[in-house]
Every structure is written in structure tokens, then in C-alpha cells.
């Protein structure tokens, strides 16, 4: 291995696992490292002086999305993600382009380096799927009776979750033609102004669908906090326990629970 000079730099670049390509202002390749040559299945003799879009053939080539073109146009760093078939199944690539400048600072070409981020993309996908699963698990709208739905809420209610709860409830109301929905907030750790606002919004939306929303599971502590914060739940029907709310819901759909005589 050489110890100094341009040769050393070239050897270092050649051993880099990332693809590195440099082009001049007319998109003629002026440099490609070993990884780039392997990726294109070419040799330096064949590729130097060629147009880069003939050698690589990305979907972004010759379009305004080409990051080298963007970098050369505005002199800034651009990054894009693309999908390419590298022979071993679909690979996800992240290309970063920087403008090449001469000593006067004028742009004379572009340099692009490409990283294989397949593993990262797959991990991100998995994470998104898991997030969706958790979200679905956290907002189970259950049919309790013909015309009565229940949504037990556990944990923290933030804006995102409130929106998801609302969507889930509204769609379920539409699908099941329910006249009452009980939102049980027994498992909600804390109810503050923001959470109360979310609850009010949800009840309004269900009302617009023609379904009355009852809120149950209001503990003494939560009731105290709500009054101390001066939150007016207005016309929303609230109950202490789920069974109270269910009784109310039964009366709304003209049902009544009666005790039958005990069997002898």
C-alpha cells in the first residue's frame, strides 16, 4: 500500500464499501471507485467519460429528481432514497450528492456517494407495523350489545391517539348502526384540560353520527381535578362505573334488565 499522495487516497476510496461517483458538469463520469464499478459491473476504461445516466440507469436519472443535478444547480447537499435491484433482491439505497468546486469556488461537477440502507429501511417498516399494531390494540371498539359499543381507554391520551380513537369509534358506529357508545376512562392515568378537550371532541363527533357517547369510569380523583380545572363537560353524560353507563345505554335503546325468579 502506498503511504502518500493521490494513489493512497484512491486506494482508500476503493476500499470504501460505499459507491462513490464523480461527474463533470455534463454528467460525464470522471471518477468511480471499486464499489461503484462492481455495482455497475464495469471497468474504469469503459466508464470514464461516459454519461453517468447511461451507466447507472436509476429511475431518477435525467429527471429533476436527480440529486447530482440538484446539487450542481444550487450548490447544496441533496439526499434521496431510491430502490434498486442489485442482483440480490431489492436494495434500498440512499444517495447523497455534493457539488464539486474548483479553487475559485465555482461548481465544476458533482460527487455522489451511495449507502446501502436496506436493513435500516426494513427496520423502519417493522417499527411502523408494530406502532400500528399497538395503536390498534390500544383502541379496541367492542360491540357490547346490539346497538351498544364500548371503548375501554387505558394509558395516556395524546392528540394522535385521540384522533385514532375517534376514527375507530366513528367507523365502528357506521358499521354497527349503534345508538350508544360507552367510553370507559377508568384506566386513564390523568385527565387534564387537553385530555378533557379530546373527550369533548369525541363525544361531539359521535353525536354527529347519531350515536350518544357516555363516559364512564370517572373516579373521585378525576372528578375533583375536572372541577378544580373548571372544565365543563356540558351535556356529556358521565357515570362512575361501566355498569351504570351500561344501564343508561340500555334505557336509551328501550331495554331493561330484570331479575328473574331464582330456580328451585
Amino acid at each position, binding site marked *: 500500500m502506498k503511504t502518500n499522495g493521490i494513489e493512497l487516497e484512491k486506494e482508500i476510496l476503493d476500499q470504501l464499501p460505499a459507491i462513490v461517483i464523480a461527474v463533470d458538469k455534463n454528467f460525464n463520469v470522471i471518477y468511480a471507485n471499486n464499489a461503484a464499478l462492481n455495482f455497475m459491473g464495469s471497468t474504469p476504461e469503459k466508464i470514464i467519460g461516459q454519461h453517468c445516466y447511461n451507466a447507472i440507469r436509476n429511475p431518477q436519472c435525467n429527471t429533476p429528481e436527480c440529486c447530482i443535478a440538484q446539487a450542481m444547480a444550487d450548490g447544496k447537499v441533496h439526499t434521496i432514497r431510491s430502490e434498486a435491484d442489485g442482483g440480490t433482491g431489492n436494495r434500498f439505497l440512499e444517495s447523497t450528492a455534493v457539488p464539486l468546486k474548483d479553487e475559485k469556488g465555482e461548481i465544476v461537477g458533482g460527487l455522489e456517494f451511495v449507502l446501502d440502507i436496506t436493513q435500516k429501511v426494513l427496520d423502519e417498516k417493522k417499527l411502523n407495523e408494530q406502532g400500528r399494531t399497538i395503536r390498534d390494540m390500544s383502541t379496541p371498539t367492542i360491540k357490547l350489545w346490539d346497538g351498544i359499543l364500548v371503548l375501554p381507554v387505558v394509558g395516556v391520551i395524546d392528540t394522535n391517539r385521540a384522533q385514532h380513537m375517534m376514527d375507530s369509534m366513528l367507523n365502528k*358506529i357506521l358499521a354497527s348502526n*349503534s*345508538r350508544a357508545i360507552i367510553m370507559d376512562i377508568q384506566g386513564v392515568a390523568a385527565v387534564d384540560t387537553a385530555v378533557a378537550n379530546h373527550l369533548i*371532541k369525541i363525544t361531539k363527533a359521535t353525536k*354527529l353520527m*347519531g*350515536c350518544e357517547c357516555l363516559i364512564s369510569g370517572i373516579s373521585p380523583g378525576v372528578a375533583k381535578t375536572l372541577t378544580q380545572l373548571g372544565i365543563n363537560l356540558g351535556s356529556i353524560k358521565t357515570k362512575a362505573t361501566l355498569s351504570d353507563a351500561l344501564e343508561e345505554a340500555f334505557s336509551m335503546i328501550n331495554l331493561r334488565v330484570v331479575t328473574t325468579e331464582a330456580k328451585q
Partner: protein
Amino acid sequence: MDSSEEYSVSGSVTNRCYIACINGELSSAQMGQLYDEIVRMAEKRELRGVIMDLNGLAVLDSAAFCVLRKISVALALMGLKSAWMGIKPAIASSLVDFGADVDDLCICLNIEDGVRLIGSEK
């Protein structure tokens, strides 16, 4: 009701309830037409109330919401009850998002529910 199609509002009467199906997009001209139609029917058929079926509406902005509200209020002044029906989930959540006042609206689940609602309380 010959001209009702071109205003994308069509209606029928059952149990002294006028059921107005509103389709497409709402303009104030259409709403005026709807209001006139309902008032005309109210005199002729001795209506007790109106069910406004919004199932065919893809979007409902604040202006159209206000117009619909005004119709409900105007009908109430004439002693007619009005019930809204068939609001889609997306419309419901967007109405709530822009803070529409829904407290004194009467909204029903289906026509059966609406007929009962309009017929029952007096």
C-alpha cells in the same frame, strides 16, 4: 319535484316526515331550493318534521354547515322538527375539528330512528 335532480336534492314523504336526500356539493342556491321545497311540502302535506339525509355528501365545509343549521332553525321557527342523518365519519371529525356547534342539533341514526324522534316528542 321534477326539477329536484338538477339541484341534487331529492325527497319523499313518510309518516308526515319529509326525507330530503342531499347529494354532491352544497351551494347556497341549492339550499334555498331545498328550503322552499320543504316549506311547500310542509303546507301541502301537513309535515311534522324533516329528516336531512347527508349520506350523499362527500364534503361539508363550514359555510354549508351554517346554511344547514339556518334551515334547521328556520324550520324550528315554523314549528317543524328537523333531524340530520347519515353524516360520514370523515365529515363528523372535520366538523368537530373546526369547532362546529353541534350541541342543539338533533341527529338520528337512520330513517326509522328519525321518524320515531320526530313523531314522539310533542
